[in-house]
């Protein structure tokens, strides 16, 4: 995700890490769950379509892994870490609005078995991501 801006207060939980391109990553039992941030979903507006990766796909950090479309725009979702996709959230195919309603929970996109867990350290923590969002807002 790129080119997103928002002026509403956004939720930035501290139990996940963030990519500057507005994806979040949460590690649990050596599997990384990926979604897009509250800031990103607010800026996209109503999500109407999600094109998920396939289980078994190889993804690499910082490159497109799938696509999210709101009524107004399409945006790439980048993989925050490299690895193999081991699960996708098929619920989003019928209920893409979950991305808006619960971005850090039921609105997750896919899960990755990471090739290098230390890639997570390259991502932003909640404070760093908050500053990053503020700086993007200032660019308006």
């Amino acid at each position, binding site marked *: 995700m790129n080119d997103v801006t928002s002026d*509403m207060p956004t939720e930035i939980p501290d139990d996940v890490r963030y990519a500057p391109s507005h994806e979040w990553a949460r590690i649990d039992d050596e599997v990384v769950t990926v979604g897009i941030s509250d800031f990103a979903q*607010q800026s996209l*507006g*109503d999500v*109407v*379509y999600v094109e998920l990766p396939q289980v078994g796909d190889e993804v690499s950090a910082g490159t497109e892994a799938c*696509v999210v479309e709101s*009524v107004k725009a399409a945006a790439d979702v980048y993989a925050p870490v490299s690895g193999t996709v081991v699960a996708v959230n098929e619920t989003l195919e019928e209920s893409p609005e979950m991305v808006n309603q619960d971005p850090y929970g039921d609105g997750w996109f896919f899960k990755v078995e990471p090739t290098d867990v230390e890639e997570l350290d390259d991502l932003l923590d909640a404070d760093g991501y908050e500053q990053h969002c503020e700086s993007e807002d200032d660019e308006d």
Partner: protein
Amino acid sequence: MAARRTALYEEHVAAKARIVPFADWSMPLNYGSQIAEHHEVRRSVGLFDVSHMTITDVTGTCARELLARVFAGDVGKAAPGRAVYGVLLNESGGIIDDVIVYGRDAGYRVVSNAATREKVLDWLHAHAADFGVDLHERQDLALIAAQGPDALRTFCAATSMDVADLRTFSVRERNGWMVARTGYTGEDGVEAALPVDQAAALWRQLSDAGAVAAGLAARDTLRLEAGLLLYGQDMDETTSPLESNLGWTVAWDPPERGFVGREALARQRARGLERVLRGVVLTGRGVIRHGQRVETNAGDGAVTSGIFSPTLGYSIGFARVPPEATGDCLIEIRGAGIPGRIVRPPFVRHGKQVFK
């Protein structure tokens, strides 16, 4: 240059609108959910700030002659109290803008787009010099649209102005207000031009009477479902009204009326069209977007506007395609040909699917 704010800017901010730059303006994109706003307009009544539109009063003894020259439609239909939709053309028959001309007791009022403000004013002024007509841009007016099946009832309840008997494309003026039964949503409704210092009060009265604020994003999905075009996207100076599904707005009679662009249009009509504007519906998964390639039985075309339709639950759009294109087509979305179908707009009227 700082973006211009309408008289209702503070109302939008207070309603937590997401404000975006649009033409020279800061305008509300949505007030939370554009889909909820869209449904509210189809179901009951929505409220739009469209004060960014350009309002120009045309007066003087030759006002009608000026419009007969620059407006491709029949200005005779804009008798006092009546309005007519149509286009301004350049000499090559390309569309300079689409406008509504409102007939008044003295002269006319032309409402044109925000993004085309300067070029339309320049164009009108350039031609007005030949006719000795007075042009007056009304920056002192705000424009509010109430749209939806409950719009007229809500407007009558909120104001002292009775518009219940106002016919479609009719206009009523009182105390500096002009209320017309026009809109850009495919629903019943009114658009009211009024002094900027009274705009916030009307906005609040309509809100209190049940109208729900709707932003530019909902306006776009509503107009597309209704088969209404957006200037700069579905048509521009390189496309003629005949190529834009707007042939019906051109008044060829009387034959001696030499409106700007007439000769080019007549030549194009005699030669035959190479492309026309049609509706497309996506039967596969995805969302149609501006610029995507459309592969049809008669050759390739391109999407001019595309959205996810909140009313229909799938994606629809307009595409410029060869005139013989019909039936199934493929729309190229991220390199893949997704199945779709060519249809005749509109898609939705009064909340219901209307295309076959």
